[in-house]
């Protein structure tokens, strides 16, 4: 089912949690709402679910106005961050709940309920746990129960509020891939809220970057990565450094560092974004920049460099890089950005974005 959010705002007292959001969720896609806490992403999800009513604006589901429709009539499956599994019911009864509470006319008989629940438990790989109580399950298992329970009522939309937020990193990654596969298999329109950019990048067909109650940018993971419309989007996707300077002769020059800006020769003040992968580092005795830290993760070496003004810059390189031979903590280093993103200062970021790339 497609969802359209039209000019939705939510105001609590003097706080505008959502400020005129317009959004389309396409049939069958997996859309991620990504943003820092307080950006309004959960509020938006709850408004789509009907757990919250918008102060202004409408929500359309399948082209019909659903703004005033009660949660239980919206045909949405909602999965909470802290599972919200019914603690006094075993796994089977949890999953069966949505079927058992149906009015008598539409309620399936016991054999049918049994069959459907078994099927769902198989889908979430919990067949052997039907008789277990929730407090005998791990966090990941509980979240899978919550998911099976939400799917039992055959919702037309699946809404997930930071579903993996309370799990440890490895389980999170595992469940993420599994959810992606399941969603493709079922073809169910899904909206997931997350503050983890990696999770969003991994999972989503499209991502909405939320910032202070509005949608900063909407696009596929690659679109956001390659063409961020604002310093906020660029910074939020991670592995980023942001600087401010003036473009002169096709470069922004800062002490101990140069950033090429092909495409712009002379300009006003700009914000420049450089990803840590795009930062070249080499030893240079006369540079004012100092290598402050060096850490290894697998094949990647992460470097932290302190600029003369005290700002810290992150860079990454392969462990096989020969440059590393000279690099010791405390060494003087020079920095050069091979690719940068320019954002004009105090101008409409979206219309005046310039990107430069130097091979």
């Amino acid at each position, binding site marked *: 089912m497609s969802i359209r959010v039209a000019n939705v705002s939510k105001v609590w007292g003097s706080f505008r949690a959502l400020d005129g959001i317009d959004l389309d969720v396409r049939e069958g896609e997996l859309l991620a709402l990504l943003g820092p806490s307080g950006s309004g992403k959960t509020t938006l999800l709850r408004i789509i679910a009907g757990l919250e009513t918008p102060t202004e604006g409408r929500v359309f589901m399948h082209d019909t106005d659903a703004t005033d429709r009660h949660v239980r009539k919206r045909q949405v499956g909602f999965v909470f961050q802290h599972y919200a599994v019914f603690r006094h019911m075993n796994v089977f009864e949890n999953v069966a709940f949505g079927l*058992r509470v149906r009015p008598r006319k539409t309620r399936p008989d016991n054999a049918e309920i049994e069959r459907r629940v078994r099927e769902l438990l198989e889908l979430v790989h919990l067949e052997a746990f039907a008789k277990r109580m929730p407090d005998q399950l791990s966090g990941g298992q509980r979240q899978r129960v919550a998911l099976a329970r939400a799917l039992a*009522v055959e919702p037309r939309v699946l809404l997930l509020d930071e579903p993996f937020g309370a799990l440890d990193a490895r389980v999170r990654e595992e469940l993420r891939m599994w959810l992606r596969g399941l969603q493709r298999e079922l073809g169910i329109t899904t909206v997931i809220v997350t503050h983890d950019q990696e999770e969003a990048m991994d999972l989503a067909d499209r991502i909405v970057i939320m910032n202070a109650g509005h949608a900063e940018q909407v696009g596929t993971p690659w679109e956001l990565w390659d063409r961020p419309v604002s310093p906020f989007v660029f910074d939020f996707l991670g592995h980023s450094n942001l600087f401010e300077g003036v473009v002169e002769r096709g470069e922004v020059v800062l002490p101990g560092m140069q950033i090429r800006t092909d495409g712009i020769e002379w300009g006003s003040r700009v914000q420049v974004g450089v990803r840590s992968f795009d930062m070249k580092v080499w030893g240079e005795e006369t540079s004012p920049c100092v290598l402050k830290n060096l850490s290894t993760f697998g094949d990647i070496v992460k470097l932290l460099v302190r600029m003369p003004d005290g700002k810290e810059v992150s860079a990454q390189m392969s462990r096989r890089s020969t440059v590393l031979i000279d690099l010791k903590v405390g060494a003087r280093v020079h920095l050069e950005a091979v690719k940068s993103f320019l954002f004009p200062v105090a101008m409409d970021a979206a219309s005046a974005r310039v990107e430069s790339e130097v091979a």
Partner: protein
Amino acid sequence: MTTHELALGQVFHLAGKTAREIRRVDWLRVGLIALTVLVMFVLLILPLAIVFVTAFRAGIGAYWSAISHPHVLAALKLTLIAVCISVPVNVLFGVAAAWLITRHNPPGRTVLLSLIDLPFTVSPVVSGLMFVLIFGSQSLFGGWLIEHGIRVVFAVPGIVLATVFVTFPFVARELIPVMEAAGPEEELAGVSLGAWGWKLLRRVTLPSVRWGLAYGIILCTARAIGEFGAVSVVSGHIRGRTNTIPLHIEVLFNEYQTAAAFAVASLLTLFAVVTLALKEGIVRRMENPIEPAERERD
């Protein structure tokens, strides 16, 4: 003496000192435990024993005739009526109040909470007097009721009202923190799965707070049975008609029928012990909410 030996000597010296200190602490511990046991014995066990010893002093036959006296049976019946009305009323009110306060964040929440606590803070005697003033023959309302043949004060309705009032906070007060801690998410999940109203209450809300509710009901029942002050003021002490068990015990005691008074008192004491045992069981369930299946596996 080399440095090494010196160091060793110091270690031994320290060790000896610690051992002495431990011995001294031991005496302190024994002393404190003895004191606690003594206080418990004098203040709790001894009185409890005296109740039963005095009750049975005149023999089983006397005990039996004391507790099967028509006035005692009438008092027992009245107490049961008061309990059977006040407990369900307060369960209904308590669940509604806890639900309103924890799930709907009503304006004036703090005022509401204080109001629920009011019966705790007001002396029971004052509560009783309050009902006498409202429903007594001197008041306009009470006068009107009496004219129409409805007696509240010095009759069963007054006793029930006073009991309901005094036991008012127990269920709500137990449920509010439990529901607060459980959070609204399970209920929201229930709603999103299509349950609402009565179905949601019966299948999600009540089961998730069942031990808190049971605890509240037990406290409420215990207080309803034992309530003396407020009931005493509104009862009028008409033997066989408006005396509850605690009131009847006082009457017997004042008439120097010590054995009979204690025989009836032993009924209340017995109930108190049962309550305590039930309460312990429930508290254990609340603190350690592992289901039986898990326990079997251990």
